[in-house]
């Protein structure tokens, strides 16, 4: 090749690459959506114009048609200055601009343009909330994948279906009475019923055995071990795709698969350095709730928990509810049952104390397997205590180190009976004990 050929060849190559860059920049995804929208809008208005009856109607439709034809392509965004948000969703979801279309309804059924009148859109002014305050996703993005946020390095993908009710929980203290937040309400009820607060706390209120869930929705995905979150083949579970690494999936998995698969720990101390000894780590102590929950239940609990975030919004965005009143009870047993639920005793001992939950490597009896160690089933054991003994047991708790292990060199059982002396006292304690004796199975009298 002569230098002259090289000279021309390279110049044309650079020119070609520059053209490629220009073409790529000018054929961005969102432009197609705006083209299509313009076509739809023009043909709709033309139809309407040909059917128009009065001159006034014709004139206004004609003006609208001219305006639609003149509409240029541009990136559009909804600004919510208080929140520092600039959401570009309306770049593709054309027609949902709150200024041009305050009702946020369109006559179209095609996906990016479809919108029916939703009361929530009316009550939540888009100039105050923009889109991503409730829907999540990546508001600044202008491609389908990136904007909906199911991409690597974006931790808040768009909430779809009933899980969007997480957004209600974030601001509405009274979300349980809200129309449209039924799933979140159901999630909260499940959490109360299952006794999650026995181990977890919410903003400091609740148990100490596991993590505080008060800001669980903010948990950074890099703090999560995704190794066992994906599809399972027999015993072995792979990892989720990186773009699905988000807290919502993480929470939901705790209710759709056994937590000891999700967080296997290191019960046989295999992660030890060679020729050293180290402590085995027990797997997750969370009971296998997936056995008794449906997919809808899991979604409901997740929706509620995704509403648990550290306060990110200005205070005037909040709807505060009056603090719940302690209900009054006719007899001590009913009050005791309420106390049993209030402190999450069911979390370990089962609803109504009827079935102790799994406690890994705790020795329940000689027949159990290592992973099937159980918490005491209260209905069976409570009868062996005197009132005084039971009071002391609840008061002092049972530390994990005092629980008999199934396998001596195995890990410390993850669940234990915390000290309740700071929390359950006075009348609550007395009525709880009364309740517990009321559910105890009849003991043989010698």
């Amino acid at each position: 090749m002569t230098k002259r050929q090289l000279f021309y060849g390279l110049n044309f190559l650079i020119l070609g690459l520059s053209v490629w860059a220009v073409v790529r920049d000018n054929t961005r995804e969102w432009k197609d959506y705006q083209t299509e929208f313009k076509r739809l809008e023009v043909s709709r208005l033309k139809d309407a114009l040909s059917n128009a009856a009065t001159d006034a109607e014709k004139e206004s439709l004609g003006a609208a048609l001219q305006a639609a034809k003149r509409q240029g392509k541009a990136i559009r965004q909804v600004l919510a200055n208080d929140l520092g948000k600039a959401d570009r969703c309306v770049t593709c979801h054309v027609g949902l601009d709150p200024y041009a279309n305050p009702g946020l309804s369109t006559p179209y059924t095609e996906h990016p343009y479809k919108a029916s009148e939703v009361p929530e859109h009316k009550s939540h002014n888009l100039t105050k909330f923009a889109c991503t305050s409730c829907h999540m996703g990546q508001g600044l993005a202008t491609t389908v994948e990136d904007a909906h946020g199911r991409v690597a390095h974006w931790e808040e993908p768009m909430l779809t279906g009933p899980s969007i009710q997480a957004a209600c929980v974030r601001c509405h203290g009274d979300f349980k009475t809200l129309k449209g937040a039924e799933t979140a309400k159901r999630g909260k009820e499940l959490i109360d019923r299952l006794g999650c607060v026995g181990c977890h706390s919410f903003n400091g209120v609740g148990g100490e055995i596991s993590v505080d869930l008060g800001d669980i929705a903010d948990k950074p995905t890099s703090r999560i071990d995704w190794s066992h979150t994906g599809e399972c083949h027999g015993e072995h579970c792979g990892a989720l795709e990186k773009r699905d690494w988000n807290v919502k999936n993480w929470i939901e998995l705790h209710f759709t698969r056994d937590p000891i698969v999700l967080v296997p720990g290191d019960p046989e101390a295999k992660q030890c350095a060679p020729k050293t000894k180290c402590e085995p780590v027990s797997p997750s102590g969370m009971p296998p709730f997936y056995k008794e929950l449906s997919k809808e239940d899991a979604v409901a609990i997740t929706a509620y928990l995704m509403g648990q975030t550290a306060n990110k919004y200005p205070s005037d965005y909040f709807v505060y509810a009056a603090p719940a009143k302690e209900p009054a009870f006719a007899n001590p047993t009913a009050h005791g049952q309420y106390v049993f639920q209030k402190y999450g005793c069911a979390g370990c001992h089962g609803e109504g104390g009827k079935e102790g939950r799994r406690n890994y490597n705790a020795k329940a009896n000689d027949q159990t397997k290592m992973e099937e160690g159980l918490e005491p089933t209260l209905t069976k054991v409570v009868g062996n205590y005197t009132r005084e003994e039971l009071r002391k047991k609840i008061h002092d708790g049972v530390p994990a180190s005092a629980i008999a292990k199934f396998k001596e060199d195995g890990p410390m059982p993850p669940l234990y009976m915390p000290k309740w002396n700071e929390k359950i006292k006075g009348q609550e304690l007395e009525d709880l004990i009364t309740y517990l004796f009321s559910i105890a199975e009849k003991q043989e009298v010698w």
Partner: protein
Amino acid sequence: MSDTPAPTPSPAPAPAPKPAAAPQFSVDTLIKEATNGQIWKSMFRNWPWQDTARHRARHIVDNVWLHLHPTKVRPRALETTFTWGLGGLSFLLYLLLTITGVLLMFYYRPTVELAYQDMKDLQFAVSFGIFLRNNHRWCAHAMVTIVILHMVRVFLTGSYKKPREFNWGVGVILLTLTLFLSFTGYLLPWDQLAIWAVTVGTNMAAATPFLGNEGPFANLLGMKINNDVRFVLLGGTTVGANTLLRFYVMHCVLVPLVTGALIMLHFWRVRKDTFSAAPRQPDEEKVDVWPHLVVREYIAAAICVAFVWFVSVAFDAPLEELANPNVTPNPSKAPWYFLGLQELLVYFDPWIAGVLIPGLIIKGLCAIPYLDTNPKGVGYYTWKERPFANAIFMFGIVMWFVLIYIGTYCRGPNYFWYWPWESWLIHKPAPPPTWSFPLWLGVLSIAGYAGLGMALPKLIKGEIDWKKANWGFGVFFLVLAAAMKIGGDIEAWRIIVVGALLWMTFLFGFLYPQRYLKDIDFMRYQIAQSLNLMMMAVLLKMGLRLGLDVKYVLELPQFNLNI
């Protein structure tokens, strides 16, 4: 020349009444008339162009952009394989980076609230925004690579030798400035990648002796976390808003200015020191720079531009989550060109790995032209005439890139060793516990290594037969291996690692200097051989850690001296 007035184009009178008869118009006449005018001639001298020796020379001298060239060069300078155009390409990338950098400054605000958002705007909203950012990023990586390759080329052709010693030193400083330019830019996207890479990088500054709060002798000058050299660099105790502003100003103003000034000095010296060292061919005649050299420079530049253009359209620059000082990624890695140093942190205390070794590398590089007294091998590639210099230098460069490779591809969570094909999600057990030599053995090893390493090559006269020496080493290694296998029940791969690195040390630390270095004068021998031994010591220590889990050879915590 412009005494004849330029004829004004006037419509010729139309004799025939044809309706479409336009005034006579041709591109050639237009160009001729335009270039004959006063405006054109005031801008461009020596017009019209004639292909004469005088014009070719004037084309260079009268042009501000080209006048740095001589008007004639020796034909050797035109050979592509002599320079590969690497110096010029470094400068080209510096210019491209200036242009794209200035354009990016229109869109970028260096505050923690806005910087990341501006990255997203560049990607999703700004016309050509993502192209600009990609281009800036890939050009920066290309510049770092090409500047390093340029240094290697200059070394291999001996172009640093007298009288060009000083310019080599300027080049070394320019290399470190290039790295620093890239490093300061690394923070600006304000994502997790950025702040943690910069955290790793700047933490090394805290280990500086005397000046860093974690370094040896920190209390002599009263260094604390809020007044040491790292604090000055960061404008705080952690990477935060002040750091972003500082790095922005350094990246956009301070470092480019200093770099630009030194580039001028570098070019000036290149011209003044002339291209004349290579041996002359009989009846060699110089050739005109215009067009012979200029066209080659243009082609090299065009290839480079085409390459970065292609990469910038095809591949997006990385952008991770918004920076979060509370969430440390595992592992946190520095930019790739510092991963060699970060890898050394596995084997050495931070002040050695992060300050002493890079300091010695820079000083050692600057010292090379003053240590290398071999007059041969200037202006051409030769291994035969400069076996020692080439072998040691290339060994260092290869070792550097091997370290970078390990740091980039072989280090996973907790900085444990993961092969490139192993998933980081399948957790590895912790590495075996480390141990240190007892003090007496440590002192003995260091003293023995330094003493024998310095003395032996100088003391042993005569030629050593390398074949015999290597066989001898082989026998020694087999005995050693057997002893390790029987005495310590050590796995075979560990013995091989230790053996291979010991052999390299034997070859480059003893055999080479014994043959090639012992005859230079005493001072130069002392400096060159001690630098050489220190480089080999880094390798030995790596072997001891990877193979035998040795933490420290010499442990003197009271002096902060753990080697």
